[in-house]
């Protein structure tokens, strides 16, 4: 609003001028000669006089670039020709932004540079969101995708001035991509996933930036993606667009599993909190990650002594403050009090209602709260056992306030609640570490001590549904199931549900064979 009279014409003239200068042979290396001359013109036109004018200039330029692309896209010509026409202007505009960011303020003044970059990214994001809303299904991702990726590549070139502001550049782009997450701009979702999985972006965020400082920002973006997919994956009704986005997500996760398994290890809890419980394979993919310097013993090794493994006593790194997720405060206080002194006794009898959020079937429980409670109680139990100089085992985990809570949940919850509770435990069955070990013992203990076959059946179901999907399968899942079917003390094969139908019996035998 309130653009000063004549600004639109001035901007159009300047943009056209710059595009010509950018493409002229006299532009010099990286357009530096053209840029020096063009900045003079911007000064003469008074564009650089105030912050407000610069902002308006960039917004008008963005809108002009976008309009040009929509006109090109409306012509019936080949995608290659359309792109050549669009990129002719877009790439010049990107270069102008990059040069202004690099040369604004003196070389030591990084704040000016980053402020300008945040301003421009915010303007482009704002134009995108407005365009997305106004045009609806006619929205086109092309101009915005090109601006973001080429600007990101330009600002990550190996130049000293850029290296000194690189972390702030990454932060600015992550903030922008979070603002443009698929839930906010679903029409931009495919370009968005392409942007955050681009080799230069992944390289900078997860490999090059020291001390893994980009990891939590990248985890946030992946969580944004899972949250968007969740309602569609939950119903497993994947039409072609959702199927493609889901498959694209699997590809990205496979790259992360192969190249950055420690990243998936660190953030598995946050991801499992937002991935729907029926998304078995995608969750298995994340839970299968293990540190590259770790050698996993073959889970099928006969008489494998899991508790003798050196890493089994090491706690895994979990980058989420799950204790803080246990709300409300009063509930957390009561739980802590119960854990230390088994009082208030009412804590157990009220536990189920504390976890419920509705009476609507399939939506009764607060899943993040269940996940946080299970991991919190488990980690408290491990600390408690270590404080007595012991290691978790089928005997040391028993008869404790921690196990009271787990056994109460196993008995008191209904099928839906117990499924979520058992899933929260199974989500900790990963590579050899103290959580895998404790929760593996806990699941087997709950099976052994169950007062009804229904609980044993449901424990088996939760494990089995994770085993019968395509690979990969987490190491902790395999060793738990192998123990369940091999250790005669669980009398697994005596249970009716193992023989409830011929195909189930065959399934168990085939899984048992592959385990043996």
């Amino acid at each position, binding site marked *: 609003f309130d653009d000063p009279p004549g600004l639109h014409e001035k901007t159009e003239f300047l943009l056209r001028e710059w595009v010509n200068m950018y493409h002229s042979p006299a532009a010099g290396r990286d357009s530096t000669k053209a840029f020096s001359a063009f900045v003079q013109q911007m000064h003469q036109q008074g564009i650089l006089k105030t912050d407000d004018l610069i902002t308006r200039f960039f917004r008008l330029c963005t809108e002009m670039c976008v309009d040009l692309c929509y006109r090109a896209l409306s012509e019936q010509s080949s995608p290659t020709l359309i792109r*050549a026409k669009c990129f002719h202007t877009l790439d010049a505009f990107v270069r102008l932004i990059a040069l202004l960011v690099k040369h604004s303020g003196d070389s030591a003044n990084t704040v000016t540079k980053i402020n300008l970059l945040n301003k421009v990214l915010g303007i482009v994001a704002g134009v995108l969101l407005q365009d997305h809303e106004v045009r*609806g299904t006619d929205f086109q991702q*092309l101009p915005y995708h090109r601006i973001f990726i080429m600007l990101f590549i330009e600002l990550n070139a190996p130049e000293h001035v850029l290296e000194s502001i690189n972390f702030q550049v990454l932060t600015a782009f992550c903030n922008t991509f979070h603002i443009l997450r698929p839930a906010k701009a679903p029409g931009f979702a495919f*370009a968005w996933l392409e942007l955050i999985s*681009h080799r230069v972006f992944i390289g900078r965020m997860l490999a090059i930036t020291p001390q893994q400082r980009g990891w939590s920002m990248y985890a946030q973006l992946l969580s944004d993606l899972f949250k968007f997919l969740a*309602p569609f994956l*939950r119903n497993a009704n994947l*039409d072609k667009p959702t199927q493609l986005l889901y498959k694209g997500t699997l590809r990205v996760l496979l790259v992360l599993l192969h190249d950055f398994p420690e990243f998936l290890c660190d953030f598995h809890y946050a991801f499992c909190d937002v991935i729907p419980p029926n998304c078995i394979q995608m969750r298995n993919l994340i839970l299968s990650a293990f540190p590259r310097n770790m050698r996993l013993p073959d889970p099928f090794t006969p008489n494998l002594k899991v508790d003798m493994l050196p890493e089994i006593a090491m706690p895994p790194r979990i980058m989420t403050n799950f204790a803080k997720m246990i709300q409300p405060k009063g509930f957390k206080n009561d739980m802590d009090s119960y854990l230390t002194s088994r009082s208030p006794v009412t804590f157990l009898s009220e536990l189920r209602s504390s976890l419920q959020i509705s009476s609507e079937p399939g939506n009764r429980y607060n899943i993040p709260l269940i996940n946080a409670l299970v991991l919190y109680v488990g980690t408290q139990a491990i600390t408690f056992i270590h404080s007595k100089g012991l290691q978790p085992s089928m005997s040391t985990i028993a008869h404790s306030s921690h196990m009271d809570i787990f056994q109460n949940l196993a008995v008191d919850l209904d099928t*839906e609640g117990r499924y979520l509770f058992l899933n929260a435990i199974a989500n900790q069955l990963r590579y050899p570490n103290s959580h895998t070990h404790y929760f593996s013992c806990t699941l087997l203990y709950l099976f052994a001590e169950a007062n009804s076959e229904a609980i044993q059946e449901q424990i088996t179901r939760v494990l089995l549904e994770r085993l019968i999907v395509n690979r990969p399968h987490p190491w902790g899942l395999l060793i738990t199931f192998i123990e369940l079917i091999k250790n005669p003390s669980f009398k697994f094969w005596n249970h009716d549900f193992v023989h409830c139908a011929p195909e189930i019996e065959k399934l168990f035998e085939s899984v048992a064979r592959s385990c043996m």
Partner: protein
Amino acid sequence: PLGPQPLQKEHLYQLAMLEAGFHHLPHPSDSERQRHYLPRNPCPTPTHYPQTPPPHSDTVEFFQRLSTETLFFIFYYMEGTKAQYLAAKALKKQSWRFHTKYMMWFQRHEEPKTITDEFEQGTYIYFDYEKWGQRKKEGFTFEYRYLE
């Protein structure tokens, strides 16, 4: 036991927008610098044509087995890419050297007659990208300031 959950209005809007985005998927070229001389033109080829590059085709060893003509083609037509970089490395391993003023690759045809700190002089083979062929040049002075 969770069963499906009815999609809310907002999800249906998201699905509609996702569907629209699905019809304008990004092209691989959208994330690459413009290739003026060899733009991507995806076109279906018979399935018996190789659909994926040969294994290890992104290594210097693979490029070293290519003919010099192929390396020159890659160098001049795939400018600014990893392929150009690998082609240059392979050419250097075959004693070609890039003249930054003529922007051509030269190879000694025989030991130079004169070698000083600033230049060497003798008979060379060079690849002329305008005529697209190798030429012999006698009595050429290769100034080291133009050696890449």
